[in-house]
């Protein structure tokens, strides 16, 4: 508890970026994750999808080390998760007090705090990394603005700059596109594809099955257990969706294809949306969430 100067651990380059083995976790007294095992290769971009209460947030909290699992082990680059400062995370928008007196540059510099170390001031290299990260996400001209003066998409880009400045290698993004307009979403997706080029490993929690299928290499369909994990085409089958969404979802066979109707929602109070999901069989699943 009084360890003021924790030592970062070294990475095993041959180990997977993230490994979970038999992880079981409770949250608020209910079973949130039940015997979850999975392994994410370095450089993969994995969408984490599933109904409300599927354990997505718990999964992220366990990877960051905020929650300890009751059973099972978590390994980041071969060891961990204690001591790793390579995990980057982008908070959900409603977790941040946007009136807080910090500038864009201040927020990005926060990513450096772990590496700078206690009782030391950020140096030239830290400032350079902050500047580079900001120009990477096209936000350098806004460096001196107060964080609340930006649009939602710009704020999201600032938080992506923060994980870049942190030199994080395993990134956890919780609904990074929720509530953003299309141009902002596209700007974020561009940055994510640059991150792929930089071989960063990404886990993205999302409710948008469509986008998840289009944008990311792999998909984890979660409902306390891992229902399916693999390329979107293999994961998004009617059986898997029915297993994951259970009572919240009804599969109707119609002349134009299978229609999947779900009444799960995103907890964010978003208006009902109807989406089209293409499956491997070439049928069209219609997912309406309310």
């Amino acid at each position, binding site marked *: 508890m009084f360890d*003021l100067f924790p030592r970062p651990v070294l990475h095993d380059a041959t180990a997977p970026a993230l490994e979970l083995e038999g992880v079981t976790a409770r949250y608020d007294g209910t079973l949130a994750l039940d015997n979850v095992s999975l392994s994410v290769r370095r450089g993969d971009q994995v969408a984490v999808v599933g109904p409300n209460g599927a354990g997505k947030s718990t999964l992220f909290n366990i990877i960051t080390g905020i929650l300890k699992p009751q059973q099972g082990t978590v390994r980041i680059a071969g060891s961990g998760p204690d001591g790793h400062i390579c995990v980057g995370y982008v908070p959900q928008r409603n977790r941040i007090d946007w009136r*807080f*007196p*910090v500038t864009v540059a201040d927020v990005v510099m926060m990513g450096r705090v*772990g590496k700078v170390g206690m009782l030391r001031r950020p140096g030239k290299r830290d400032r350079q990394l902050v500047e580079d990260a900001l120009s990477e996400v096209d936000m350098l001209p806004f460096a001196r603005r107060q964080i609340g003066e930006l649009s939602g998409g710009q704020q999201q880009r600032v938080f992506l700059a923060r994980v870049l400045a942190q030199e994080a290698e395993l990134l956890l993004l919780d609904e990074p596109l929720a509530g953003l307009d299309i141009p902002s979403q596209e700007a974020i997706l561009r940055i994510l594809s640059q991150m792929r080029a930089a071989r960063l490993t990404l886990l993205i929690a999302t409710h948008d099955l469509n986008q998840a299928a289009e944008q990311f290499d792999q998909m984890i369909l979660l409902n306390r257990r891992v229902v399916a994990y693999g390329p979107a085409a293999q994961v998004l089958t009617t059986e898997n969706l029915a297993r994951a969404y259970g009572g919240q979802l009804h599969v109707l066979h119609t002349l134009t294809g299978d229609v999947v109707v779900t009444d799960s929602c995103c907890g964010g109070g978003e208006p009902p949306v109807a989406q089209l999901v293409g499956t491997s069989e070439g049928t069209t699943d219609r997912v309406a969430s309310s």
Partner: protein
Amino acid sequence: MLDWLIEPLGYGFMWRGLLAAVMVGTICSVLGTYVILQGMAFFGDALAHTILPGVVIAYLVGWPLAVGALIFGVLSAIGIGALSQRGEVREDTAIGVIFAGSFALGVAMLSTVRSYAVDLAHILFGDVLGVSPTDLWVTAGLGAVVLLLVYFFYKEFLVMAFDPTLAVVLRLPVKTLRYLLLIMIAVTIVISLQTVGMALMLAMLVTPAAAAQLLTRRLPTMMATAAGIGALSNVTGLYISYYINIASGPAMVLVATAVFALTFLFAPARGLVWRRLALQTA
């Protein structure tokens, strides 16, 4: 005008009071920025009341009040931190239980003393004009320690206040830092006890910082502005109390409240008046 300012300084109690008012205003306001940014106003108020038993014990035994207050302040800061971290009781509930219970214990102990009413008034509302040279040294010493800690752990406290999850992810010693901040708040409360007393202590922490937040966009400038507002309000309040003969603690708090009201209305871009104007021109 100058005479008007200098005349009260002829009295030793008055310049000691002014010195205390400036120091307390500065220290409280700087730490107060963290209190308001982390939504800890209730905690601060509660902590101010929980130290009463410590103050009373010190008073009965004849120790300096600050010693008893400090011991109790630190103990209750740790107690509240521990009780709420276990997660079985909500933090504000834990604070409420400890706050009221401890305050009741203090009043009960004090009621055994003959000069009960006078003593209680003194503790509740402070007496900045009764500050002794020793009190000044204690305030200066403890205040310097608090401000140095704010300076040395600036970036860590900033991360914890803005994004506590990031603090965990960056493997900062979150628990240690949290207790450190609670103890710093306890120390600050003890420092300001003599000046404004328990009942109004919260204003010293919260009001100048709240006004400063409306005027600034970075934490260091917010702290400096809050310190300026706190120190100036206290000095102004003390002069007002001298000339129109009202209690000094409430006078200082009322000036700070007036400053907050003015910034709330007229702060550039963020004040109520400016936002109304912007709405009309838009």
